[in-house]
């Protein structure tokens, strides 16, 4: 037996059967990432291992939360030039090439996440074994950071599972559960955790043949004609969600894949060149910024011991089984909570159960997990859950009197340390809590619709809300895997308040004679996920009007006549199939492309976007959120504000504050006081 060098980030040992066990354990970090330090040590370790001529090599993680989360994104910020980036990527590629070329069998043992560079490392091993735990997920999500895989992943995943599946994973950036990864051919064995090591040792001893692509998949992936045809399809698919000038990475990935059919080594060089270009682009820099905004919100759950029991994290009681209440209940169940769902009579709860079933069947493919989800959601028309709940979430009609009557009735029944949370979107907490004996326990937990899709949740604190309640509410939001945004109670909180002037401006533009299609196009050209007219229709024009009226009164904004007319004419939007657009049977808007006479002008977009920026300034001045970063985070994750810009304030910085202010002043002159720059400018 040989003694190995000591490494800071890797543990090395050799067993009696001369099999080397290499465990990644990044120093001073809770999660393994492939920082340059970790990579340099891997290089040295591999050389040392090779020299001992072992029977085989097993690579696993010494951390219980997962395998490897990918590259060290923090290091991206240090990359200044294309050449510097290229050099680092080539270095990393070289290390994984050496891993792949080892003359003995190598196996990755994967338990927990294995994404980005982590998966690329696993792909460079001869075999992969993964646990069937639902935490074990794999993927190459680099596009979400404005780049694509750079450590040989584009070449090796394509080689392993074929171009169609590989490109689908890389272009979408989604991760898949181990079960799905096995189906796709990414791993050799799917095992319970207790067999992980045994399976790895067996693979080294047996050295089974490596998985091969079926001839059909190989045909589709490995000749220039099929790649040419498929690449066209991929571009079409990508264009539906991302424009090339805003999100160049997926397009670069498709080019790379299309152009390198025959030589693996050429493809690696091209991969490095492509990523080096991408990683220094503004888009990537902004998306990295958004990534860290997300990390910052994820780190907000500070009540370490609150709701940590994995088997039974807590009891949530939701009052109001409408779309929001029902979906909040179902989402909490998906995240492991036991939920009682109350409304005035059973018939009001039943539809929410039907919707929950749809969500559960999508989320849980294994029968016993699905059954367990059903068993955690209890319709509760008698409100028996109130006494048992750790958090009571109120999601009833936006009427202060009705809400207060409810609070008064339930307050004496709450557990001593229970939190009372409201999903109100417009009523201030101070007003609501005035009826409570203990107003400190009321906090806003404001979800966005549709809940399974919208990651952001505003955690609203009123003047009376006690810090412990806020901390717990934030922690709860993390426990249900949403992103908490702490905001101060004021009309519309952050997201709706900033969104409303933008929607109202869109209506003004409509009144001025622009077609709905043109206005929407201007917004989506800017990078919004959905045009404002479509958005208003989707939210419901009656709801828009009601929120606009409440906000308008307090913020002295006039509500366009047009919006009131629409509601009077019972044109309520998507829900009754007629709003600004008409809707087909499936609920899709019937748009007339001919209504867009010419490409919308920059002025059109500016009028809408500048109202967002102006309102953002006002919110910062009033301290609705703590800082510009959280404001950007709120707008990106709460409204989908063009992520490649890094959020409204980041966009403003790029665009230039002075120039933007001048533009605002010009607009004020031509269109009136609604463009009056906020004093904060």
């Amino acid at each position: 037996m040989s003694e190995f060098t000591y490494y800071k980030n890797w543990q090395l040992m050799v067993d009696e059967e001369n099999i080397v066990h290499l465990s990644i354990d990044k120093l001073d970090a809770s999660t393994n990432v492939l920082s340059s330090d970790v990579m340099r040590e891997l290089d040295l370790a591999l050389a040392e291992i090779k020299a001992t001529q072992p029977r085989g090599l097993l690579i696993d993680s010494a951390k219980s939360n997962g395998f490897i989360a990918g590259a060290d994104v923090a290091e991206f910020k240090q990359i200044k030039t294309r050449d510097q980036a290229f050099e680092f990527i080539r270095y990393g590629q070289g290390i994984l090439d050496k891993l792949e070329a080892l003359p003995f069998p190598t196996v990755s043992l994967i338990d927990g996440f294995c994404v980005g560079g982590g998966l690329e490392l696993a792909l460079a091993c001869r075999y992969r074994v993964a646990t069937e735990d639902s935490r074990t997920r794999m993927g190459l999500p680099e596009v979400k950071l404005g780049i694509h895989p750079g450590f040989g992943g584009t070449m090796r995943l394509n080689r392993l599972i074929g171009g169609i599946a590989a490109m689908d994973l890389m272009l979408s950036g989604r991760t898949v559960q181990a079960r799905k990864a096995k189906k796709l051919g990414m791993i050799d064995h799917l095992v319970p955790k207790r067999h992980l090591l045994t399976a790895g040792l067996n693979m080294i001893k047996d050295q089974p043949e490596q998985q091969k692509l079926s001839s059909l998949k190989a045909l589709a992936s490995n000749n220039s004609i099929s790649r040419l045809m498929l690449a066209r399809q991929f571009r079409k698919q990508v264009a539906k969600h991302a424009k090339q000038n805003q999100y160049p990475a997926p397009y670069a990935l498709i080019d790379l894949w299309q152009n390198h059919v025959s030589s693996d080594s050429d493809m690696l060089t091209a991969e490095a060149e492509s990523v080096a270009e991408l990683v220094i682009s503004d888009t990537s820099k902004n998306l990295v910024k958004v990534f860290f905004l997300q990390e910052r919100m994820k780190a907000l759950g500070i009540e370490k011991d609150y709701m940590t029991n994995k088997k039974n994290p807590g009891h949530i009681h939701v009052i109001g089984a409408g779309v929001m209440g029902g979906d909040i209940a179902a989402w909490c169940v998906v995240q492991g909570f036991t939920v009682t769902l109350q409304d005035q009579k059973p018939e009001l709860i039943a539809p929410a159960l039907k919707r929950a079933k749809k969500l559960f069947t999508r989320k849980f493919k294994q029968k016993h997990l699905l059954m367990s989800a059903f068993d955690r959601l209890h319709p509760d028309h008698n409100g028996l859950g109130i006494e048992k709940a750790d958090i009571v979430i109120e999601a009833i009609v936006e009427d202060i009197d009705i809400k207060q009557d409810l609070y008064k009735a339930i307050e004496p029944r709450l557990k001593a340390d229970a939190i009372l949370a409201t999903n109100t979107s417009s009523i201030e907490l101070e007003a609501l809590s005035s009826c409570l004996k203990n107003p400190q326990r009321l906090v806003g937990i404001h979800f966005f619709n549709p809940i399974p899709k919208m990651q952001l949740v505003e955690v609203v604190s009123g003047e009376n809300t006690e810090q412990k309640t806020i901390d717990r509410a934030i922690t709860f939001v993390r426990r249900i895997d949403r992103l908490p945004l702490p905001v101060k109670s004021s009309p519309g909180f952050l997201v709706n308040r900033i969104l409303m002037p933008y929607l109202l401006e869109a209506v003004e533009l409509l009144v001025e004679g622009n077609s709905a299609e043109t206005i929407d196009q201007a917004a989506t050209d800017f990078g919004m996920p959905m045009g404002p007219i479509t958005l208003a229709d989707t939210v419901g024009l009656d709801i828009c009007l009601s929120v606009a009226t409440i906000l308008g009164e307090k913020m002295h904004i006039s509500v366009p006549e047009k919006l009131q007319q629409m509601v009077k004419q019972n044109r309520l939007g998507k829900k009754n199939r007629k709003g600004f657009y008409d809707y087909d049977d499936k609920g899709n808007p019937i748009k007339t492309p001919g209504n867009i006479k010419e490409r919308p002008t920059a002025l059109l977009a500016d009028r809408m976007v500048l109202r967002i920026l102006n309102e953002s300034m006002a919110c910062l001045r009033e301290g609705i959120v703590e800082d510009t970063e959280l404001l950007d985070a709120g707008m990106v994750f709460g409204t989908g504000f063009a992520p490649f810009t890094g959020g409204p304030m980041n966009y403003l910085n790029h665009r230039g504050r002075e120039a933007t202010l001048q533009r605002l002043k010009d607009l004020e002159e031509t269109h009136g006081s609604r463009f009056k720059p906020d004093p904060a400018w």
Partner: protein
Amino acid sequence: MKKMSGHSVFVVDGSRSPYLKSTSPKHAMLASELAIKSAYPLLARQPFSPEELDEVILGCTMAGPDEANIARVVSLRLGCGKNVPAWTVQRNCGSGMQALDSAARNIASGRADLIMAGGAESMSHGPLLFPPNMTDWLGNLAKAKTPQAKAKILASFKPANLKPIIGLLRGLTDPTVGLNMGHTAEILADKFTISRQEMDEFAVASHQKLLAAHEAGRLSEIETIYDWEGHVYHHDEGARADSSVGRLAKLKPVFDKKFGMVTPGNSSQITDGAAWLMLASESAVKKHQLNVMGRITDCEWAGNEPREMGLGPVHASTPLLQRNKLNLDSIDFIELNEAFAAQVIGCCRAWASDDYCKTELGLKSAFGEVDPSKLNVDGGAISVGHPVGSSGARIVLHLLHTLEQRNATSGLATLCIGGGQGGAMLVERS
């Protein structure tokens, strides 16, 4: 059997599902689902946690393939925790009452303080079985190694192999005498000269009593339950406001098809449902300050002639009442499960008959008359339905509610059991 002795057994609460008309297995709920949905509110309103139960006992005769020891499946899914033991009992139509008796005895003996016991059945999910020929054929096919051998087995297939065995029908047939339960009712009709008119009148009354109870709000034992398709179930589905002797007269006999009198109209309805009671010792009542509905004071099981299984209640109830110094007059209310109108009427006739009581019960003369105004006051299985394993628990639960609603003190719940048995339970409210 001897009188139950030991600690007092208190019933502190109970609940049941609405009894739902049997439908296709695709749409009907499983016995476990009915049990869970009706038990959840019962557990949720207790001041103690489900994990504090000493055990869960459930009666069920036809648990499904995913419901082996259905009591344990239900207990775990209800959140009673992995440390609460649970077991399933089977005594055909007496299963639900058997669960209560088993629970009561464990509390009386001091072995337990808190037990949730009841019965559940989904008649809709009665099994459909392959006949033995088909099972053999499938087994041989699986064993065949070569393609030739496989082909040979495939060729030996006979269409008759596909004729399924309907588990529900077989389950309701006594293999020792070769009679379906309906036939045993026909035998009683003949033995006690019960007319078709009498049976149909009895059935109509059952519907009317159930509807009146519903109107008057006497069925508070029912918990509204939900499915996952957006439906809500509030009430028993068997009740028919339009039932009349004229209408029932048009129905054809189903067992003795040509000359018989037992029709679907004067038999219990095939339904799905579950019922639960919460049983507690005196110390549990004090510890958790539980509200007492009444006490289970004694229980009796008796065997009788399988061909006359419907008279089981007479055989079980008579010694039970006698050893407790009670009789048909002194008891306040009686729930006698309505398996068949002929069978309930038969029981009353048997009790009133010198001849039957002398020869079968060893009495000197007739045991007595049953006052119709104290029998099944809010209807019975003919209108409510009869999910076999559940009914025994339902009649005890409803009897306790009846005693409370009518401010009475003593009640008898009794039922006949396929195979020739009777079960009877005494409850008391102070």
